[in-house]
């Protein structure tokens, strides 16, 4: 049996699962003491599920703690960055596009040295050993222990980053090092920013891991625990301390993965309607479709792979105005239960419209019976058109798509959606995040800029797939269950000879602990 826990900004959800079967689920407000919150969630599901602690094989945790640390600029460690790129890149030094408050939180310790690679595999320059030693000496004097390392084209060739990291370890044995090729993809500025954020979270990550370990031990759980990542796969406890930044968008990812598992759908759109906003994400092959654009985390431009999510201002608490012609984006939010008409308040909300048109019965329906029928009809129509438009913007083409509806605001949908081939409202949708965490798989990924003029496309793909599989197994996947999830091929314009950027991702089930 597995336990999945999702620590969100507002709620902490937990589920106990036996295979695909949900034994029990629990939802509570997130407490400021995350460790205590996790212990309480564990207690709830273990007690309610009447299982022995020894029957739990694994605990999977999704957490927003690292994202919050970046947004609030709290608990970030002073962090240095060594970039091997010169003579290229001197015009755009590390940290130059960061908001000043977070750059100062990290301390502005940026160094550039000669090194890195070109698109065709040649070195820009060998590593400049003298400058490297000088930079490290400077870092030693500053007392900084968290260090990010980047090099031009390191996703294609990581040798220079490895060399810098090994030199750092020799001279600063307790250094916490983040190499950019392990964190991000092509685009050195954004990848380096990602590595910097990751390194700055290392100390906090060690604390979080140790808190989680204590929480589990206190409840007699000796099983391994995992943390869910942006891409919907898991990392084991020993990896979290090294890659905390890979959890940045695990919340929406777990929600999408949970919706997939609850509905049994692999390819669908997921519409999550809350009190204030509606989020649409896309499931392709059971995993979230990833955004192609740069994503800012706490004002820092990164290229983490994160799910492509469209948010619009429509939820259960959305204000209705103009005789029903205008819905949202303003909302009463969490004050819905006091301010909506049906709950005794004086504000006309989308929930009141859903009650007035008879699609749901909550609160005191009599309080909305006197509303103008035409206005109720206009608002109902408007709400459905807004949802249709959001789905339309996210679907891959104009064919109707299956839509999985989750979240408390799902009651707003009472009529047919033009964009949907069918609408599925699964049971337990309120704890989809925790279920997504509990059932997450393990993945491996490789990205390279390749030229098919040297090797055939088939051979390049086969080599890269093997490399991705090896990475997945190293991360804890069961070899037999591996499958290729995605091959992304982008041609490169203005270059000779069939150059392309290829990314291969494989996933598999978690290997059972021996």
């Amino acid at each position, binding site marked *: 049996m597995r336990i999945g826990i999702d620590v969100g900004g507002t709620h902490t959800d937990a589920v106990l699962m036996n295979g695909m079967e949900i034994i029990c689920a629990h939802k509570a407000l997130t407490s400021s003491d995350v460790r205590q919150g996790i212990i309480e969630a564990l207690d709830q599901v273990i007690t309610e599920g009447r299982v022995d602690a020894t029957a739990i094989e694994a605990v999977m945790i999704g957490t927003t703690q690292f994202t919050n640390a970046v947004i609030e600029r709290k608990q970030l460690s002073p962090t240095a960055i060594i970039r091997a*790129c010169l003579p290229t*890149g001197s015009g*755009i030094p590390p940290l130059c596009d960061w908001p000043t408050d977070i750059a100062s939180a990290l301390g502005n310790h940026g160094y550039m040295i000669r090194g890195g690679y070109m*698109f065709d595999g040649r070195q820009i320059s060998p590593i400049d050993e003298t400058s490297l030693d000088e930079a490290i000496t400077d870092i030693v004097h500053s007392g900084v222990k968290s260090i990010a390392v980047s090099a031009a084209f390191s996703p294609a060739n990581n040798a220079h980053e490895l060399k810098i990291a090994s030199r750092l370890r020799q001279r600063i044995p307790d250094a916490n090092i983040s190499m950019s090729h392990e964190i991000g993809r*092509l685009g*050195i500025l954004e990848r380096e920013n990602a590595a910097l954020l990751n390194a700055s979270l290392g100390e906090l990550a060690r604390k979080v891991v140790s808190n989680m370990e204590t929480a589990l031990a206190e409840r007699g759980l000796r099983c391994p625990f995992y943390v869910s990542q942006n891409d919907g796969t898991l990392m084991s406890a020993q990896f979290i301390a090294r890659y905390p930044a890979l959890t940045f968008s695990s919340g929406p990812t777990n929600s999408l993965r949970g919706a997939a598992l609850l509905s049994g759908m692999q390819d669908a759109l997921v519409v999550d309607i809350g009190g204030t906003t509606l989020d649409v994400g896309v499931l392709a092959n059971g995993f979230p479709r990833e955004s192609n654009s740069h994503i800012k985390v706490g004002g820092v431009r990164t290229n983490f792979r994160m799910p492509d999510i469209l948010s619009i201002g429509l939820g259960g608490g959305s204000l209705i105005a103009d005789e029903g012609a205008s819905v949202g984006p303003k909302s009463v939010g969490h004050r819905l239960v006091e301010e909506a008409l049906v709950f005794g308040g004086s504000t006309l909300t989308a929930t009141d419209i859903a009650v007035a048109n008879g699609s749901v019965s909550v609160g005191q329906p009599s309080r909305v019976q006197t509303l103008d029928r035409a206005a109720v009809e206009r608002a109902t129509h408007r709400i459905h058109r807004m949802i249709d438009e959001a789905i339309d913007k996210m*679907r891959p*083409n104009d064919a109707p798509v299956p839509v999985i509806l989750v979240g408390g605001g799902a009651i707003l949908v009472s009529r047919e959606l033009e964009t949907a081939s069918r609408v599925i409202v699964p049971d337990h949708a309120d704890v989809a995040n925790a279920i997504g965490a509990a059932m997450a798989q393990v993945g491996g990924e490789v990205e390279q800029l390749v030229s098919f003029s040297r090797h055939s496309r088939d051979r390049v793909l086969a080599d890269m797939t093997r490399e991705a599989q090896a990475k997945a197994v190293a991360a804890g996947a069961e070899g037999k269950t591996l499958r290729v999830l995605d091959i992304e091929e982008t041609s490169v314009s*203005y270059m000779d000879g069939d150059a392309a950027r290829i990314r291969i991702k494989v996933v598999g089930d978690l290997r059972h602990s021996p």
Partner: protein
Amino acid sequence: MKTIGAEHIKDLCTGAAFLATGGGGDPYVSQLLAERILHQIGPAQLISPEDLPDDTFVVSIGMVGAPTVTLEQLPTVDEAIGALNRYEAVTGKQIDAVIPFEVGGGNSTIPPFVAAMKGIPCVDGDGMGRALPEAQMMTFPIYGAKPTPAVIMDAFGSSELLECADAISFEKEIRAKAVAMGGMVTSVEHGMTGALVKRSAIPHTLSFATRLGALLRQHDGNIDAIEPELFALFNASDYGVIKRLFTGKVIDSRRKIVGGYDIGTATLQSFDDSNRRMEILIKNEYLVASIDGRTVASVPDLICILEQETARPLNAERMRYGQRLAVFGIGCTHHYRTAQALSVTQPRAFGFDIDYIPIEEIDFP
């Protein structure tokens, strides 16, 4: 505008992205570089072509190569200034001013900062008034400037002197050299007298793009609110004509690479009439737009696209199903209206079997 400084660069880049007609790459890194340098050393003097003395010596400068390479090989501080200095050393000529060859996209920011570094003026104008993929499509060679001698320099400070018979052989040569030198080079080319700049450059495009960018960021990105001022801005400029060609959503977008070029077709469906379709042919840039089979705008006239909800210019690489777009057709300046100019920039020059009809001659409801 008499000077161009760090505070103008963001607006310039937004305007340049609009004029890039879907091409020109992501200007983010160019923007950062120009802002940093201009912030450190102060603004560059901006001079209108008509104010240039006839005997001034002006060169065009910008970057040439594969945008993908710059994802990893970020620009140096000294490549652009190094290329200018090398040009002077190799040709023995003193450079009095620089001019962009392409206002559309990231290449609009290089001449302002390199001018500030060298302490010479930057000419307010360029050789395209938009973005176009090849050197022979610039107004400079069309009106008699020779592309070479040209000096290209890479990030290592290695340089090459190019001597080519004409713009077409220059285009071939510089592409091949760019790949051999690591994928991206800075090019100093098209040395001209002030008199030739007056004849061949499209004037005032840097200040125009800066005003345009500032305008696109007003009214919270509400296109309908921006449109009257946008039309007034273009109508009063050398572009002259602007029309809203279409408002609708992308219902299909296909792309492939042929011969090193990104070729695509996008289909849009009108919001007003779901049977009405616009098709856009894309080869790095948006080149031909037709509605229900009838051409409504074609290169060298400009087809510029804004995302409807944000009024942000849309790069062709980011186009995908479901986007809500406003498509504008804009007349090219008189520089592109001659038979000689059209022979290298009309749709046939890109391999499309379509006649160029000036946008103002196309009846449009």
